[in-house]
């Protein structure tokens, strides 16, 4: 323990200068990152769409009345086509589709973000641990990862959500637990590459333990990769959430997937009620595409090997 403390004190005693240097370097790196990202047009489009979506989700409760979402207090005619009062028509109980869309954005985005976060945490922990440790521990972790990689994630998530009972937290858990395997694989490969570097050996020779190496050396090095990958994971988490809601494992709140389930149950597609089928789906596609664009742009910017290629 004392070695660790000494080491930190040593670095601290290196006075404010080293910290200032580090800060300046970090700022320069950030500026470089912003310039590189700004040069990627697809990434900018993605970021702009996301900004609009997140703003809409945040502003909705301030500018609209949630009572419009209540089935018993809905004012419109049932399944009415778009009109001046209801720009996107109404659903089977007379609620405004536009209003549902705005409130649904909150649920879809929140579940998407939270389950991607959960998935990234599990994936990073598994990836770093299975890359860092040797022998049977690594073998067991890899086997579990492979198992989750192979199994059909959607089917597993559906079973989990159904067995644990409804609610947003269950859906987040179900998506997070079933979608981390590919991240773990990616992080593991990166961990192996980082651990092969000489400074890790130096750190070990100075008495650094597993925890120190994993959190102080490996984690900062894989963090950019984790960030880029999270963006892509959010995209697939939003699709998964909507699919789960559509197939009947819903969170109890109106989400885009849940709206589409409603439209299917009421035969909107076969009766030509396009205003109930098109908007939620378009929203999902737009947001997912935006996340994908951002993720790919981040990957290009953060991964030097890709930078030359594109």
């Amino acid at each position, binding site marked *: 323990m004392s070695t660790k403390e000494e080491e930190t004190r040593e670095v601290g005693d290196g006075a404010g200068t080293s910290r200032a240097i580090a800060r300046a370097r970090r700022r320069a790196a950030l500026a470089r990152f912003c310039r590189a990202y700004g040069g990627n047009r697809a990434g900018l489009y993605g970021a702009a769409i996301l900004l609009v979506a997140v703003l809409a989700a945040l502003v909705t409760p301030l500018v609209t009345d949630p009572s419009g979402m209540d089935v018993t207090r809905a004012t419109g005619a049932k399944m009415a086509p778009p009109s001046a009062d209801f720009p996107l028509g109404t659903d089977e109980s007379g609620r405004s589709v536009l209003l549902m869309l705005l409130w649904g954005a909150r649920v879809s985005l929140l579940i998407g973000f939270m389950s991607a976060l959960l998935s990234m945490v599990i994936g990073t922990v598994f990836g770093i641990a299975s890359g860092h440790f040797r022998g049977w521990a690594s073998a067991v972790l890899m086997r579990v990862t492979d198992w989750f990689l192979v199994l059909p994630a959607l089917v597993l998530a559906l079973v989990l959500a159904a067995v644990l009972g409804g609610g947003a937290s269950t859906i987040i858990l179900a998506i997070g637990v079933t979608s981390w395997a590919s991240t773990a694989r990616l992080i593991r490969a990166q961990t192996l590459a980082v651990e092969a570097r000489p400074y890790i050996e130096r750190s070990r020779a100075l008495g650094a333990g597993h925890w120190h190496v994993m959190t102080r050396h490996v984690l900062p090095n894989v963090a950019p990769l984790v960030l880029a990958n999270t963006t892509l994971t959010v995209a697939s988490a939003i699709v998964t959430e909507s699919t789960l809601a559509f197939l009947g494992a819903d969170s109890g709140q109106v989400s885009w997937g849940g709206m589409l389930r409603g439209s299917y149950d009421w035969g909107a597609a076969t009766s030509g009620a396009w205003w109930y089928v098109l908007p*939620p789906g378009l929203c999902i596609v737009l947001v997912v595409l935006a996340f994908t664009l951002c993720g790919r742009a981040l990957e290009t910017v953060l991964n030097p090997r890709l930078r030359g290629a594109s």
Partner: protein
Amino acid sequence: MSTSPAELTKAPPKDDRGGARRSLARYALVKLGGALLGIGLVVVATFFLFRLIPGDPTIAYTRDVPVTPEQLALLRRQMGLDRPLGEQFLDFVLRTLRLDLGTSYEYRRPVAELIGERVGPTLLLVGTGLAVAVGLGMWQGTRAAWRHGGRFDRFSTGTALTLWSVPTFWLGLLLLMVFAAGMGPIPGLFPTRGMEDVDAPDGPLYLLHVAHHLVLPCLTLVAVVYAQYLLVMRSSLLDEIGQDYVTTARAKGLRDDDVRRRHAVPNALLPTVTLVFMQIGFVVGGAVSVEFVYSWPGLGLLFVEAIRGPDYAVMQGTFMLVCVAVIVMNTLADVVYHVLDPRVRSA
């Protein structure tokens, strides 16, 4: 056949081949062991997962029927819920081995029987869909990579990426709306649901009848699935194009078509094949949504209906079957790939 100097320096070919076969056998055994372990994990996970159900399973079983506490106790004993967990688990494993998957709450019939009826339609849908998706994806991927950066490349890659981010079920709803329900000027060209109508004709006409019902579900599945084949084939072929042997083949003065068909594509095909099988779980997920949207009477629809129930016995049975099928397919793909590609064998 001429022998190159490199081959002469190697061990005699006969021994080499025997060794390769032995190592292949060992590889296959290891893979088989892994698959059995994976299936074992599935069974264990299923058992414990379905014991997380909040509330008593007997309550789910008797949801619509008024029962006395005595009847409930009897039912619990019949379902074996009063015995120790270890004993229940052993019983579960033994029954699963005998393909006894319990009785459906909804249908009051053995789950194995229900599943048996649904396997055929699913295989028809997924099989046709995969065949078309693989063919289309590889053809487009090859063309896109060969003229990469060109208009065809940009168009097909863009389309594939867009379709990739479209939720399967929504695409299904759109196709249903446009081509089956008949929106605007387009009449309803295809049936909206199911695999056959009540008045389905007999004989060869029956096949046409089913094919007519198959068009839209199959199209939906293909649209969502083919993107990955396109992208993998494209990048894999792009790798090959950068290799020296392709330059050599070109320098020899071979026609462009021959370089592509006889040199680059066969080499690019192998990594594609294995990735295709790795993604089989994704296809299964897509098939579940498609079956639900079009009420295609397959396993996916059975599964989704069981969720709505909730019919835990049916969910449990279909879940195990799908997982085991996916594990078996992956293992097969690994072994076949090992046989086909000498590069992995030496590694």
